[in-house]
């Protein structure tokens, strides 16, 4: 079993819809959780950074962490065509530990 599982998609949704992206993980020692956005042929861009369980909101983006279920989610409200990209979940055990990434989910927002 991989440490971090993420459906690669692609996921296609109409503009304006709410997008739900998620990852599951197997190592209960993970404490820090991140979501990155990666456009084609670019480096990943940090979107959200959370510690332990709970919700965090930033503009149209909301990150949720459920450590009891080993499940993390990213919600995008009022999705725009410019949100079309690959979204990578990532996590680490300690603040100075290596980051473990999921495979990434390719998202297409249809105008």
């Amino acid at each position, binding site marked *: 079993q991989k440490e971090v599982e993420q459906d690669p998609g692609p996921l296609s949704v109409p503009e304006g819809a709410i997008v739900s992206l998620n990852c599951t993980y197997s190592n209960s020692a993970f404490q820090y959780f991140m979501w990155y956005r990666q456009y084609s042929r*670019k480096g990943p861009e940090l979107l959200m950074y959370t510690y332990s369980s709970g919700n965090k909101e930033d503009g149209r983006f909301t990150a949720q962490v459920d450590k009891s279920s080993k499940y993390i989610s990213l919600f995008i409200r009022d999705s725009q065509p410019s949100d079309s990209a690959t979204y990578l979940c990532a996590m680490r055990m300690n603040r100075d530990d290596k*980051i473990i990434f999921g495979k990434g989910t390719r998202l297409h927002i249809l105008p």
Partner: protein
Amino acid sequence: DAGVTQSPTHLIKTRGQHVTLRCSPISGHKSVSWYQQVLGQGPQFIFQYYEKEERGRGNFPDRFSARQFPNYSSELNVNALLLGDSALYLCASSLVASNEQFFGPGTRLTVL
């Protein structure tokens, strides 16, 4: 402000050759990490350097090595290239080893 910069942008090598990739972190950032991203996969951790010392190493063969210079820039070296080394090599920098990491655009390496 300039972000993380990497050079070269693209590189084509043949099997058995050696390659050096370069990274300049964001000004003030002292930690640099290297990742390999194969097409269709997430980035995989190779090395982390902080204050010129290796702080972490991923599950990569000894053909992969890196170093960090006094100005905090870094080089990734790969010897005896294999076809499977073809990937996007990403560099990320952070203020300290534990902080949020910011990625550069990557170097796309093709091994023929």
